């Protein structure tokens, strides 16, 4: 399951949903808002998603992970809106029979989410400027 939400992500509560009597391993990833990027002091991040396609593409990624790693349970939640330093922007949790496939599946899902989901983030800097991440070249020539 994948969710897009404006609400706070609570990994401890989400993790409980992955319990499976056949699972011997759980692996979770949390992406946090940090206060610096490429030398700029960052105050907060603003996330925007095109939800209909973010959900369908996210479901495809989770299905791919389940095909690669049998008996996998997987769940992902991504935030949108304005997030402050230290907040959780994305959470991926998986459970699997053994740790190796749990680590690999979690890594596969977060790596794919980052490059495939129609989600964008705008950094708001301490100097009052802002910029869309991965769009530096566009911003410079705009």
């Amino acid at each position, binding site marked *: 399951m994948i969710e897009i939400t404006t609400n706070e992500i609570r990994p401890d509560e989400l993790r409980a949903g992955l319990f499976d009597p056949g699972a011997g391993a759980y692996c979770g990833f949390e*992406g946090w808002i940090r206060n610096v990027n490429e030398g700029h002091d960052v105050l907060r991040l603003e*996330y*925007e*998603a*095109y939800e*209909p*396609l*973010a959900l*369908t*593409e996210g479901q495809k990624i989770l299905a791919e992970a389940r095909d690669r790693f049998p008996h996998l349970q997987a769940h992902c939640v*991504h935030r949108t809106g304005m997030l402050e330093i230290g907040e959780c*922007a*994305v959470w991926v949790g998986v459970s699997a029979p053994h740790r190796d496939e749990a680590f690999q599946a979690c890594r596969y899902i*977060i790596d794919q*989410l*980052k*490059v*495939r*989901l*129609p*989600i*964008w*983030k*705008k950094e708001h800097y301490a100097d009052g400027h802002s910029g*869309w*991440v*991965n*769009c530096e*070249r*566009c*911003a410079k*020539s*705009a």
Partner: protein
Amino acid sequence: MKTLTVRYFAMFREHAGIDEENLSLEAETAADVFNATRDRHGSPEPSGHCKVAINDEMADWNSPVSDGDTVLLFPPVAGG
């Protein structure tokens, strides 16, 4: 001539100053639509770094567009 709805997201939306617009274009592919809007709004990001969807389905730049389609232009994504 095809009448298309073009939707802009994130940086593209800010650059165009609008969420979406209806355009009449001589366009055969998604790339033609992208190029027409780039000329129109001056966004310089190459299409290879961007993604496109047609009627809520992810598409390729050489995907054909039809009269009445909604073309969604996505600047480089940055989830996570």
